[in-house]
């Protein structure tokens, strides 16, 4: 277990250090998310009281778009000087490599969402401090990170990776977005708390399933 978690922690820490130095992912995705909320506001012009109904959907569309941008970068750093090949010829297991990349993406996405949430709360008139919203964000972001990391690895090997990732990513995460919107509706005032446990359970099952499937598929994706 130490041989698995030790290298994993090392790889996550390396991604955090690289991001802290380059600031090319988190900052740009936050800026994109903020621009998106401004565009939504001008495009939809919600009347007073209407914003709450729109809030959950807009929030999760923005988070999903932001995730796509973030995930596109997940394997680019690894490919710049062939560092991924250096990792693949090291004794570290493919599972550890995948889970480290997914964990780093999860952390970066949470940072982005934490920065965007107050802005969306202010614009769309809902309180960002809600345990149900927090649970939805944690579970949905974990799913985004797992699936996004896998498809990012796959798309990084193609010439049209910027297109390939969203084309693969969105159909798979749609159930997560539906569940996240349903759960968030109760918190933002755009829905009810009815069936909350069922939606959270669905998201948990979805994550558990992809926590098993994604590392397994990843080992085939990186095999030459």
């Amino acid at each position, binding site marked *: 277990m130490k041989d698995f978690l030790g290298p994993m922690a090392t790889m996550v820490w390396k991604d955090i250090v*690289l991001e802290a130095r380059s600031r090319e992912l988190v900052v740009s995705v936050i800026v994109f998310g903020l621009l998106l909320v401004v565009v939504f506001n001008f495009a939809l012009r919600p009347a007073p009281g209407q914003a709450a109904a729109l809030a959950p959907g807009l929030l999760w569309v923005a988070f999903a778009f932001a995730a796509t941008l973030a995930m596109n970068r997940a394997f680019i750093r690894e490919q710049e*000087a062939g560092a991924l*090949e*250096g990792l*693949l*010829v*090291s004794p570290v297991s493919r599972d550890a490599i995948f889970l480290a990349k997914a964990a780093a993406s999860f952390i970066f996405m949470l940072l982005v969402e934490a920065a965007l949430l107050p802005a969306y709360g202010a614009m769309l008139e809902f309180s960002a401090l809600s345990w149900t919203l927090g649970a939805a964000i944690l579970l949905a972001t974990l799913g985004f990170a797992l699936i996004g990391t896998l498809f990012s690895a796959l798309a990084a090997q193609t010439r049209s990776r910027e297109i390939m990732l969203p084309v693969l990513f969105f159909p798979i995460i749609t159930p997560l977005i539906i569940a996240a919107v349903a759960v968030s509706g109760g918190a933002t005032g755009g829905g009810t708390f009815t069936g909350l446990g069922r939606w959270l359970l669905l998201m948990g099952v979805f994550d558990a399933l992809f926590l098993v499937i994604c590392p397994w598929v990843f080992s085939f994706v990186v095999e030459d």
Partner: protein
Amino acid sequence: MNAGYAITVEGLEKSYRDWPVLWNLDLTVPWGEALALFGANGAGKTTLLRILSTSVRPDAGTVRIAGRDLLRQTAEARRRIGVVGHRSFLYEDLTPRENLTYYARLYGISDREARVTAALERVGLGSRANHRVRALSNGMQKRAAIARAILHRPGVLLLDEPEAGLDRDSRRMLGELLAEWTAAGRSVAFTTHDIELGLAWGHRAAVLTGGRLAFPGGGATDIQQALSSGPSTRPGEGEGRMSDGGGR
């Protein structure tokens, strides 16, 4: 039996789609020996090294590094391999020291600081150890890549055209390093287009042609002759086996 060799390859075959690159290739490299691998562009030198380094899976045949089967004991074999490829495998926003410390952790090296410093000093990068990789010249990045490859003291060093991008001093440093490596009983396999350099660094020379290895004895003239007299056909053609293995 195979533990007696650093590298053992038997019946190796590799094709890309319907294009066979390596064909029924056999090779042994004893401990303490450096093998210089020559071949024309596209002969399959890099493919062979990438198979030996576990980056690419062979279609058929067995490969053992330090007695470990690459397909069955992959992680154990990887611990015994050091690779210098065409690219540095380094993160450009980290310094050489940080890159090496990162790899030292991945390889589970306990005395990391001392080992990293020793590897950087060995390739003459001590004074630039704390500069970001992107700020280093290509030659210095190559030195850092060599330091990364020797960091875990692998039994087998695999180098793909290691002289590329190195100046005369760096080449001399690398030649001395490879000599030390084999003198310590470890082994090296490297590809090169520079025949003189390959003969100077290698104990034995092999020419990859027609998907197989030939071992012409003698000097540069024999190597040159073997390179120019290679078959014009695709590997395996005319042996009645294309239909068996060509599309694998």
